[in-house]
């Protein structure tokens, strides 16, 4: 009985670790992801390092097929454009394998960037390496680093995907404002339902 329980505990903890071993608050911008050059909608190759802002950097994992990213797409564009104006570097990344979702290919990114008038790069994570290093599991998901490159917020854009008129908390906006004014982020980590990222083969 005890042995069974022990086995169950080991099994459960092993599952927990593999299910959510990702970047934690306070971690530095990971070197093995920050330098990865990815193809932007304008054809240029861009890395997270290239897009760093003087006040911080916002990395957004998104895609084009997911109903949640679709529900949020204009708010994502608006918040990203706004953060850019505040001296925050913004980079949106699509790490999905387009063989599973055709609209998540380069052309889909170009279309999405045009539809939502984003002023920040939207790039193809062609080996899903950046998502893997970050431990990004779903879209949309936001990672905000401060001016020293430390992770100060990870999670969702706001607290209501379905109805933007019912939004009560704008987590990313709050975090960006805190970072700019040198204050700690009040809610540094949030959870939400989203589409799992279908990693490409390595």
């Amino acid at each position: 009985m005890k042995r069974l329980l022990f086995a169950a505990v080991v099994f459960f903890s092993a599952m927990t670790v593999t299910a959510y071993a990702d970047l934690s608050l306070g971690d530095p911008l990971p070197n093995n992801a920050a330098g990865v050059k990815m193809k932007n909608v304008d054809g240029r190759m861009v890395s997270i390092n290239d897009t760093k802002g003087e006040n911080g950097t916002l990395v957004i994992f998104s895609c084009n097929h997911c109903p949640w990213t679709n529900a949020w797409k204009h708010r994502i564009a608006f918040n990203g454009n706004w953060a850019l104006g505040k001296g925050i570097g913004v980079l949106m990344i699509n790490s999905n394998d387009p063989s599973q979702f055709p609209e998540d290919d380069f052309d889909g990114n170009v279309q999405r960037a045009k539809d939502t008038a984003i002023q920040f790069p939207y790039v193809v994570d062609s080996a899903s390496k950046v998502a893997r290093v970050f431990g990004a599991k779903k879209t949309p998901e936001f990672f905000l680093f401060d001016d020293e490159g430390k992770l100060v917020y990870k999670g969702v854009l706001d607290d209501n995907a379905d109805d933007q008129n019912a939004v009560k908390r704008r987590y990313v906006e709050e975090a960006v404002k805190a970072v700019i004014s040198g204050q700690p982020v009040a809610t540094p980590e949030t959870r939400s339902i989203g589409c799992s990222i279908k990693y490409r083969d390595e």
Partner: protein
Amino acid sequence: MKRDFFHLGLVMVVLPLVLVPAASGCSRSRKAAKQEAVQAVQVTPVTAEALTRLIRQTQASVVAVNVWATWCAPCAEEFPQLVWFQKQYRDVGVKFFFVSTDFESNLPAVREFLTRQKAQGPAYLKAGPDDEFVRALSPSWSGAIPATFVFDSKGILRHFHEGKMSEKQLSDMILDVLKDPVSS
């Protein structure tokens, strides 16, 4: 020869007159029957708090909670095996809760999906903030779907799987708790 053409012409005129009303009548009744079945599936909105309470109050050795959405392809792929397990293990005290995370406006599609899959109740629709909901089910869950959570008779989370499961992964989790449904 001319007469044959006449007959053919007659058939072509008369046949649609006979067949069309019959066919449309038939599809009408089939549609009505389908609609009835679709409405028969109860989908109840559930907050994180209510779901936790329901899991604890359910008189079952094992409660498996599957979180899904109609628009999630891997969710749809694994759904038939969940329904199969639900039927196979119902009599030995394993209960399945299906919690859709579709937007409320998508409720008709949720009902239709559950009916088509022949899922037994109870079926729920996530209500309230995501953050509470995700944390209530498991602190280790990223929020990506599908996700399946296996609770024991005391409502303690014993196993959890994020992403599509194989049949073996599902049965391993359920059988492990079924062997020892009272956590100590």
